[in-house]
């Protein structure tokens, strides 16, 4: 591998979360974006060709090295790594609403789910998956929530655009409330 690919590999190794293309570019002032992208491609190829236990993955608007799926069981059984705890149905539904309607207030989430979401919202915030992103109009100027890069990373998504589009879902429904339509 060329030196830039080596530097990128070392950097991706040292990072604890996905690294954006611009952060990778900043590692070496003499390299252009195109060169960085070519080196990333070389790295990806090298892992595939030589047969490695890790692979280069594009996630959360960045790049990350992850172990290959087939080794997960053995590593988890050896207690070298804990798998993240699975999310509850309540947490998943709340995340789904926030992902599609962000920025969205608690009242609207509760209206859709039909239950109080205070506890689940707090725990999603504690886990860093959602965060308050501003305040809404109206009474009490409610906090509005949105998803974080950690949310994308948890799901292995490249960006919010890779979420399935609503019209692709099997349940047909008119689009979310028209702007200006009153809250009930």
């Amino acid at each position, binding site marked *: 591998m060329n030196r830039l690919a080596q530097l990128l590999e070392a950097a991706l190794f040292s990072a604890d979360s996905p690294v954006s293309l611009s952060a990778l570019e900043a590692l070496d002032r003499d390299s252009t974006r195109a060169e960085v992208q070519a080196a990333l491609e070389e790295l990806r190829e090298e892992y595939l060709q030589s047969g490695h236990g890790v692979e280069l993955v594009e996630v959360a608007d960045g790049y990350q090295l992850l172990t290959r799926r087939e080794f997960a069981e053995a590593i988890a059984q050896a207690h070298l790594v804990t798998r993240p705890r699975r999310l509850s*149905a309540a947490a998943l539904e709340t995340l789904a609403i926030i992902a599609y309607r962000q920025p969205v207030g608690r009242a609207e989430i509760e209206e859709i*789910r*039909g*239950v109080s979401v205070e506890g689940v919202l707090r725990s999603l915030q504690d886990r860093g998956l959602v965060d308050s992103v501003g305040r809404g109009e109206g009474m009490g100027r409610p906090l509005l929530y949105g998803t974080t890069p950690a949310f994308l990373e948890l799901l*292995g998504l490249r960006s919010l655009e890779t979420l*399935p589009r*609503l019209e692709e*879902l099997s*349940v047909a*429904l008119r689009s979310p409330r028209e702007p200006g339509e009153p809250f009930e």
Partner: protein
Amino acid sequence: MSVSIAVENERPFVVELDTFSGPLDLLLHLIREQEIDITDIPIARVADQFLEAIGSLDLNEAANYLEMAAWLLRIKIQLLLPRPFDEDRWEDPRAELVRRLLEYEQIREVASWLEGQADLRSSQFPRGWMEEQPEQEAPPIVVQLDDILEAVQRVLEAIPQPVLHRVVPRPLDVEGATSRIVAFLEEKGHFELTDVLDSEPTVADVLSVLVALLELARIGRIRLSQQQPFGKVAIAGESTSTTS
């Protein structure tokens, strides 16, 4: 908690209440289970089934469901009222319910997609070891009590049988530990953690005593304090305490 729902001319079906994330989830389940046309819900029947299902919930758990029950009953009554002669002007009182159900069903579909993605991703691990980086503070560590308790469980499961090579009487369980602590309380008023334990406690003993203490502290029977790191844990009856 499961409830058996009676269905006319058919076998009753069982509803596991704990598995529902809310009233819409339960309602949707009743509708889908009986293959009801969602645009033409037999409200009277479904409302009865809904009430039957939540009947066994205690008031605390039922709070989220009661609003839905009230709504269903309101729609049921509205449907009994005479319709205007001009059918076109009649608004189906079920329309809003149908909209909410479909909206929720869509969210649930997204939720299950998210779950699948999270499962896929959780079988790939990022780098574990973080090298010390000069000129930079080490990132903070997160540990949660749950993580420790899960770890304790794994440790207990992994201990080969027989456990440590010691001759120990039957391990202390939480009830045993609780009554031992309560006895101490009545006798002394305040004492130390080590008083409650035998001289060579097992992991299970320590855990039992600890849980008993935490539970007693939680319900306000006792107060725990530790004067210094690694210091002894002092236990006092809550009535004798003067500070908080």
